[in-house]
């Protein structure tokens, strides 16, 4: 029978036998109930725990032979013994819990201390490295001699590390100031060169060349657009003997091309009132259609960039329905402007002046 009282231990109705005589005991609500030594199971009793009035059933388990002994702890003794055991068990449990919690916390303290020491060491090393690097930079900038005083093993290692960061920064600087990034390949038999392009403070595309150095200097692979006369340039500039001059010329061509291309892009983006009638892949020819405000006259402007190493046109030609217009002082000025200023900037001025819409 299951006790329906909420806090009751559900269905606890096992009895145990003890001693030589068959003993029927019961348990209910976690409390031992009436150890009754008897031959027969007692009649059903009610749980004496306050507030619980359920009947308890007694069940015999592990029936033993009756040895005939008349031993038997008095009921009260068993009860109090059991209570004592229970309390002991509980307190041991809490004690264990507390001890393990203390150990847990101690371990955490140790872990945090280790972490703290590690962080301190890392920060100290970085600070030492920075200090040494600053000193080295100053020495190199002022071109002083290094003072090779006696150093400890650790400071030797630190010096190597500082030099490492210094070289990395210097190589990066070479890259940033527009140098050719060169890497030797195949044990010195070849080289990879990167040429960066930029226009008006913005870095643009990078072009790459793979060069064979031995037996003769020649280009094996590249990603330079076909309208750049790579082979001509190689021949004219004597790539065999003067690699740097060849690269300089190539770089001029590529940078000028990138600059013109960028100008075209900006014209299309920022000057929607100006129509781009014609342009070519090399961006060496540009035909624009202007509209004069008020009169709405159309002006066709052709920009020829025959010098492919420059970002400015070599010739500006104007055509208009109004035959007088190209010779007017205002438009002669515009012509000069277009020859001397990058087109996207010139258009801003021309708009301001009211020449074009």
């Amino acid at each position, binding site marked *: 029978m299951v006790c329906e009282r909420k806090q009751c231990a559900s269905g606890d109705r096992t009895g145990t036998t003890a001693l030589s005589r068959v003993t029927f005991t019961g348990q209910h609500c976690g409390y031992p109930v009436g150890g009754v030594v008897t031959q027969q199971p007692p009649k059903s009793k009610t749980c004496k725990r306050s507030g619980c009035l359920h009947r308890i059933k007694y069940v015999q388990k592990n029936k033993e032979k009756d040895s005939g002994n008349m031993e038997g702890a008095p009921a009260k003794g068993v009860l109090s013994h059991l209570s004592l055991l229970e309390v002991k068990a509980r307190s041991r449990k809490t004690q264990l819990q507390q001890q393990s919690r203390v150990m847990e916390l101690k371990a955490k303290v140790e872990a945090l201390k280790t972490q703290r020491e590690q*962080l301190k060491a890392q920060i100290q090393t970085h600070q030492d490295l920075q200090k040494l690097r600053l000193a080295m930079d100053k020495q190199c900038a002022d071109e002083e001699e290094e003072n090779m005083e006696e150093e400890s093993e650790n400071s030797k290692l630190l010096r190597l590390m500082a030099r490492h960061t210094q070289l990395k920064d210097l190589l990066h600087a070479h890259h940033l100031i527009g140098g050719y990034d060169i890497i030797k390949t195949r044990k010195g038999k070849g080289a990879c060169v990167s040429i960066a392009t930029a226009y008006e403070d913005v870095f643009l595309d990078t072009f790459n060349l793979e060069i064979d150095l031995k037996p003769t200097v020649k280009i094996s692979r590249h990603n330079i657009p076909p309208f750049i006369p790579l082979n001509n340039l190689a021949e004219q500039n004597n790539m065999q003997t003067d690699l740097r001059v060849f690269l*300089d010329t190539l770089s001029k061509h590529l940078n000028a091309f990138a600059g013109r291309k960028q100008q075209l892009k900006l014209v299309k983006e920022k000057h929607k009132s100006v129509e781009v009638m014609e342009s070519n892949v090399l961006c060496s020819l540009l035909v624009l259609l202007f509209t004069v405000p008020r009169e709405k006259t159309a002006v066709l402007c052709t920009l020829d960039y025959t010098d492919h190493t420059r970002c400015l046109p070599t010739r500006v030609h104007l055509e208009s329905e109004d035959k007088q217009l190209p010779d007017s002082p205002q438009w002669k000025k515009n012509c000069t402007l277009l020859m001397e200023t990058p087109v996207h900037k010139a258009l801003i001025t021309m708009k301001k002046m009211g020449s074009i819409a």
Partner: protein
Amino acid sequence: MEKMSDENTEEVKVLESEIERLQAEVESLQHQQQEINKDITFHYSQQMENALVFMCGQRQEGGKEMVMSRLKEELEELEEDMKLQTEINGITLNSCTTKTLQNSGRKLVQQLSLSGNCSELVFQVEFQLSEIKDSERSKRTIGDLNVVLDSSDLQNFSSFLSRCIFCPYDRNLPESAWSVSESAAKSRSLISEARPHLDCVAQSEEFGKQQMEKYLR
């Protein structure tokens, strides 16, 4: 039984407060470390990482000799690269200091100071580098260009500068050293544009040829 439980609670309290204290310490140290890392823009190579770990007191297999010899090897490679770059660019860079002004996820702004020489012309250059990362590509721009030269013959260089800088420079500075500064953005192809001029100024085309011969040999 009761007494032991009290002692335990006391100890637990002490330990918990110590843990709180240590956690605060660790957090402030981590913050300090982050500040330092802000200025480091390159990922350290494996050998550098090993060296750092060693310096912090952690032992590794092979010990100090291994760490040092491996780092030396890597250094030699870098010195070789440096020599190559110097020869192909015709410009010797002596020092480069970088200061990171801003380093959020997408935007990186650095202030760079370089010093070096081109043949016999000694120079110092300062500029600001901004890098903005897009989804596909990153955009790099140069600003605040500042050039300090030490030379009396600056005709060619001044014409180069006036081409790419839209502001007149101050000619009133003494001849031996003058600086040009411009707050608008500039062309960054300092080498490709400047080298012909710097070479002229230093009058050492011959020197350049010798350099290239050395390189090609």
